[in-house]
Every structure is written in C-alpha cells, then in structure tokens.
C-alpha cells in the first residue's frame, strides 16, 4: 500500500514539475504576448457586441456562424482570450517566484575578497601600479579608492587580505527587483479587473427635472434639480450639466453639479452625465389664452398653467388643469388611444381638463401647430388656444459600481514604481584589489552593471581616471 502511495506522490510530483517547467519559460512569455497582440486585432476588425442579426447581415450566413462560434463578436470575453490571459498570469507568477529567491540571495551576497583574475574578467576592468615614491602603500591607496567610490555614491565594504586589501562597492541593488515589482503590479491589475467583472455592475437611469428616482441596486434615490447646457460663442455645445441630489431615507444627503468628466460618487456608485433630452410625455408648463368665439377676439392676457396644478382663469367661472402631453401626437383608430409617434417634439399636444365651477365639463386635446381645429369648451362662448409650452428636461445618467477599480489603481502605482526601478535604477558593482608589489602596489579594479553598459563605461572610466591622477599625484 505504502509503495503505491509513494508512487502516486511521485507521479503527481513529476506532473507538477512539468507544469511548473511549462510556465517557467520565457519562450511561453513571448508566445503569449505575441498571440495576445495578434488576436486583439480581431476585436478592432470585427465589430464587438452587436446584435446577432448584424453579423449574419455583414458576413453572410456561413462566415457569421464561424464568427459567432469562435466568439469573435465578443472576443474579449471569449474563452480562448481568457485562456491566454490565464496563461500570461500563470507565466508571470511562476517566472517571478522561480527567479526571486536566487536574485534576493545574490543581492545580499557581498563577496569582498576576489582574485585579481576575477576582476580582470569583468566587463570593465583596469589595472596599474603605483610606486612607493608616489605614496604607494596599501593602506593609503585603499583609502583613496574608497573615497573615490564614496563620492560616486557607492556603498562600500572592505577587508585586509594577506598581501594587501580588497574593496567591494555597490549601488542600485533595488533596480534588480524592478521587473518583479512590475510583475506583481500586473497580477494586481488583473485581479482588480476580475473582481470588477464579478462584483461590479453598469446601469442607466433617466430623471426628469425635479423628479426623484430610485437608484438601481442601491438603497437611495437621486433627484435632478436642474439640467442645463453651456455653449461656446460659436453656438456649439460646450458642456452638459446636471445638478443632482442624493436622497436617503427621505433626507437630502449630498448635492453636486456634474458634467461630462465630473461624475457624482456615492457609496461606491458613480453617476456619469451620459445624455439628455426633453421628456416626451410631460411638460413643465403651458401658455394658454381665452378667446371669445362669437366676436372672434382674444379675452385678456395669456396665462401660464403649470403641470397638474389647477388654474382658475381670471374673470370667469372656468378653471383648467394641464393633465396630458405628447410630443408627437398620434391617434390609434382601432384602440382610440392617443400615443406619441416619436420622442421628437414634432406635433406637440396637451390635454387640459376644463372645470365650470369646479365641475369638469370637458377634456380637449389642444395642438400647438393646429390651433382651433376642435371646439374646446362645448356649450360656452369660450375657446382655449394653446400658445406655447416649456418642456421638461431630463438627464440621462450612466451608473457604475466597480469594486475592483481601486485595486487596478493600486496596481498602476506599483507598476510605475517598478518601471522606475527596472529602467532607471541600475545595479552597479565594483571590485578593487590592492596588492603589494616589488616597489609599490598593484591596483586591480573592475566593475559590472546589469544593463545600460554605455552609461557604466563612462562612469567606470571616470573612476579609473580619478584614481590614476589622484594616486600618482600624491
């Protein structure tokens, strides 16, 4: 029994090793990155997220069936795109974990005492001899080497060896970990994106002016106090603005003016200015005037009637109530129903209820474009004329909640930090060895950098030049 178990463990281990080795490969990195680049192009060629009929129309039946099966119509959510991302993530994680411990250990290791041959084999190296007459004793030369390297902001360790001294100088060790930090940031960003796609939502609401609407999937309401446009002098629209108030438990808790680029945020939900328009089924107020039918004469001044606010016409027993509106009047012969043909204000009509001494006597529809086509108040000498109206603005808000966003931003900050370390901090190491010679000392100095060799060549030659002039002059 034990034997079999051991074998199983062994098999599992080898499988694990193989998977690890598969993901621990830079060839895989390149393959995945290039594949992602190539397949992403599909998304810019095939229009994304259209209704299915669209693809049949555009590509024909046969090709569109391929497009749909392969998920090209929604490719960034297709299984194969997701698989590529998972491969990339696994690749990043495995490569980073695999390499990190070694790197960390190497960065802590400080070998001070190295053989002259090691120094000579470094990418940059130099050696020269200082005569005793010129102050060539081990101790003072060592101190000068240290001084010069300190001026260049190196950290230094030194030790005395049997026939002289050894110096090790280093800086920018953190630069070695830049790539690891970038990898961590990428995984952070991917995590944020996944959290957002599972726990976030998107929605849309439209609110009329002075109306309060329940925010979907939330326990508060939003009221539109005002909507208005800003214009350039040339007449082009400069900005859309909405004055919004958040209402919670019947109380106003937050008021804010929003515009495109300036959303309102409440309890993790963001409200964005998305569009706007005039309501098609109600208005703010209408302007009417009374007319004497017999004399064909206007009586008195025009008056303004507010939506659903009964109004007593001065000098008469009549009152009117503005009770209905359609932006584009339509009448269905079959059902005898009145309906708006379109949300455009092409043929606006209002319905007013007329009262005689508080008794309703009629409910005529009045047309702005066709006044006086119907008698409005039967059995009287009066007629009502619809002269104008003020529409009701509504604002369209898109609503989003994405709890992953902050994680994405944190990832972005980490990434910026990682880039600074990876590309602008260089790990430089310099070894020096001072050895007693017949009539003076031999100096061996050499150094290396993890990247940007040209820059280091310059710095290294500055160091050696400095060393040469200083030790030979003194």
């Amino acid at each position, binding site marked *: 029994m034990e034997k079999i178990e051991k074998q199983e463990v062994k098999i599992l281990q080898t499988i694990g090793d193989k998977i690890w080795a598969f993901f621990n490969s830079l*060839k895989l990195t390149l393959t995945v990155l290039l594949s992602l680049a190539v397949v992403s192009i599909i998304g*810019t060629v095939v229009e994304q997220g259209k209704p299915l009929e669209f693809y049949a129309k555009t590509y024909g039946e046969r090709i569109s069936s391929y497009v749909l099966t392969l998920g090209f119509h929604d490719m960034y959510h297709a299984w194969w795109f997701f698989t590529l991302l998972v491969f990339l993530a696994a690749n990043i994680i495995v490569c980073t974990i695999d390499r990190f411990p070694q790197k960390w250990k190497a960065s802590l290791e400080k070998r001070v005492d190295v053989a002259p041959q090691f120094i000579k084999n470094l990418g940059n190296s130099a050696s020269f001899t200082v005569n005793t007459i010129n102050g060539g004793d081990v101790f003072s030369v060592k101190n000068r080497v240290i001084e010069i390297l300190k001026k260049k902001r190196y950290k230094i360790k030194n030790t005395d060896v049997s026939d002289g001294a050894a110096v090790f100088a280093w800086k920018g060790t953190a630069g070695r970990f830049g790539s690891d930090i970038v990898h961590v940031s990428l995984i952070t960003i991917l995590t944020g994106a996944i959290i957002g796609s599972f726990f976030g939502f998107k929605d849309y609401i439209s609110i009329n002016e002075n109306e309060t609407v329940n925010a979907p999937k939330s326990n508060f309401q939003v009221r539109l106090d005002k909507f208005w446009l800003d214009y350039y002098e040339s007449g082009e629209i400069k900005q859309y603005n909405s004055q919004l108030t958040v209402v919670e438990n019947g109380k106003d808790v937050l008021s804010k003016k929003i515009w495109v680029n300036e959303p309102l945020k409440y309890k993790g939900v963001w409200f964005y200015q998305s569009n706007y328009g005039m309501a098609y089924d109600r208005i703010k107020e209408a302007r009417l005037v009374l007319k004497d039918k017999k004399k064909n004469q206007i009586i008195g001044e025009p008056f303004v009637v507010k939506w659903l606010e009964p109004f007593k016409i001065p000098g008469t027993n009549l009152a009117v109530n503005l009770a209905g509106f359609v932006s584009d009047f339509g009448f269905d012969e079959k059902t005898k129903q009145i309906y708006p043909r379109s949300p455009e204000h092409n043929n606006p009509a209002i319905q007013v209820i007329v009262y005689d001494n508080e008794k309703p006597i009629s409910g005529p529809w009045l047309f702005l474009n066709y006044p006086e086509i119907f008698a409005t108040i039967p059995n009287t000498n009066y007629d009502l004329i619809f002269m104008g109206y003020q529409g009701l603005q509504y604002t369209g808000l898109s609503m989003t909640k994405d709890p992953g966003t902050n994680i994405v931003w944190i990832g972005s900050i980490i990434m910026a930090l990682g880039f600074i370390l990876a590309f602008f901090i260089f790990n430089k190491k310099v070894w020096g060895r001072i050895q007693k010679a017949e009539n003076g000392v031999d100096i061996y100095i050499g150094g290396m950098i993890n990247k940007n060799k040209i820059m280091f060549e310059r710095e290294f030659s500055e160091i050696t030049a400095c060393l040469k002039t200083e030790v030979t002059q003194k």
Partner: protein
Amino acid sequence: MNFIFFHITAASYLIATVIYIVYLFSHNDKVVKTANKILILSFLFHSITIISRGIEAGHFPFTNLHESLSIFSWMIVGVYLLVNARYHIAALGSFVSPLALLFLITASLLPKEIVPLVPQLESYWLYIHVPLAILGNAFFALSFLFGIMYLIQEHYLKSKKVGGLYFLLPSLDVLDELGYKFLTYGFPLLTIAMITGAIWSEYVWGSYWSWQPRQIWSLITWFLYAALLHGRLTVGWRGRKAAIYAIIGFMVLLGSFLIINLLSLGEHGFLR
C-alpha cells in the same frame, strides 16, 4: 497666424534636411554643425507654431490628427536635440530631420481647422495623457531610427564594402544599446499614458477600460514592445533581430496612430 509659422517651420525643416543629406555625402563636420543649428531654429519656429495655434484655439492644440502629427514631430526633434547634446551622434540628425519633415508634410495635407473642444475632452487629463502618449511615441520613433541605422551599418559590415555612411554611424553595439535605451523610456511612457487614459476614461464613461479601438491598439503596441523587451533581456534578441522588431513595432504604432486619429475625427473627437 499659426499657418504662417507652420509654413516657415516646414520650410526650415526642409532646409535642415537638405543640409543633413549633403552631410551624408560630404562627411564635413562644419556642414553637420550648420544643419544642427538650422534644426534648432526649426524647433523654435515649430514651438511658436504650436503655441500660437494653442492661443488661437484657446486650448492645447492636439485635438485632431493635424495637430497631433505636428506635436509628434515636434517631440521627436525635441528628444533628438536632448540626445544630441549628450551623445553627439552626428548622423542621427540625417534620420530625424527627414522624419520630422515627412510628418509635417502629412499634417499639412490634413484638415487644419481649429475645432472647439467637445465636452468629453474638457478635462485636465487631456494635458497629462496626450503629451505623455506622444512623448512615448517619440522615444519609440528614435528607437526605430536606431533600428534602421543598425541595419544599414550591418549591411556595410556584411558586404565588407566600408564607405558612405559607415564612418558616420556608431558601432553596432552602440546602436543596439541606444535602441534598447530608448525603448526603456518609450515603454514606461506608453504604460503611464495607458494608465492616465484609463483614469480619464473612468471619469468620462465610468469604466477604466472599455475595449475601444484606441485602447485595443495601445494594448497591442504594449504587448509587442513588452515582448521585445523580454526577448532582448532574456532570450537574447539582440542586434539584427531586435532592430527589425523595433522597426515593425513602430510601424504598427504609427499605422494605428494615423488610422485611429483619422477615424475618430468624427463626433467622438480625439478621445482615447
């Protein structure tokens, strides 16, 4: 007013380019010094063009392809002038100046009207995101030029016919290293541009990423350059391979830059 400066700038780049080309044949240091001086002058004219256009428009002028191309070439020349002060690669000017001229000529063929900012663009992020993105592109452009110089130099070495440009160009090692160095500026800039673009998009659309063509193409470019950097650092794509790759990468970048900015000239304006 800015059109007058635009034409002066273009003419000045033309003169610089001609002198730089003369230098390629004459190998005379005085010639290249003159060319550099004229290029600096062109850069000043170009700066005035951009500033005067900005004043006329009332906002930073990079809201259509004409303006972005102009700024793109301005930044390429600006980066070159900084590099030149440090590395003194005489022949580089002979590559930068024609590229800048080509961009300006293309820009002059495009619609040049100043349009007011659409509501979506009314944001401080416009002034952060767009310059960073174009600056990153400028670094990639120089990396691309080093790639071309690498291939030319390699051609001389392989054919064993030293002559012509051979003496003007730096060694293959230096060209390779510089090509890499400019990637290490371009890539973080591209990344930061994508991040700032995401922040901006979050403010306008409520979503930091929505798979818009502009975002997808920047991601494609990002994937390509990420692959190049990893190939260089770890698998040893150096020299010729890296040079060809840098050239392809920039072609993709430039192609998507032109196409997307041409397409988005419509109602959505220059966004993302």
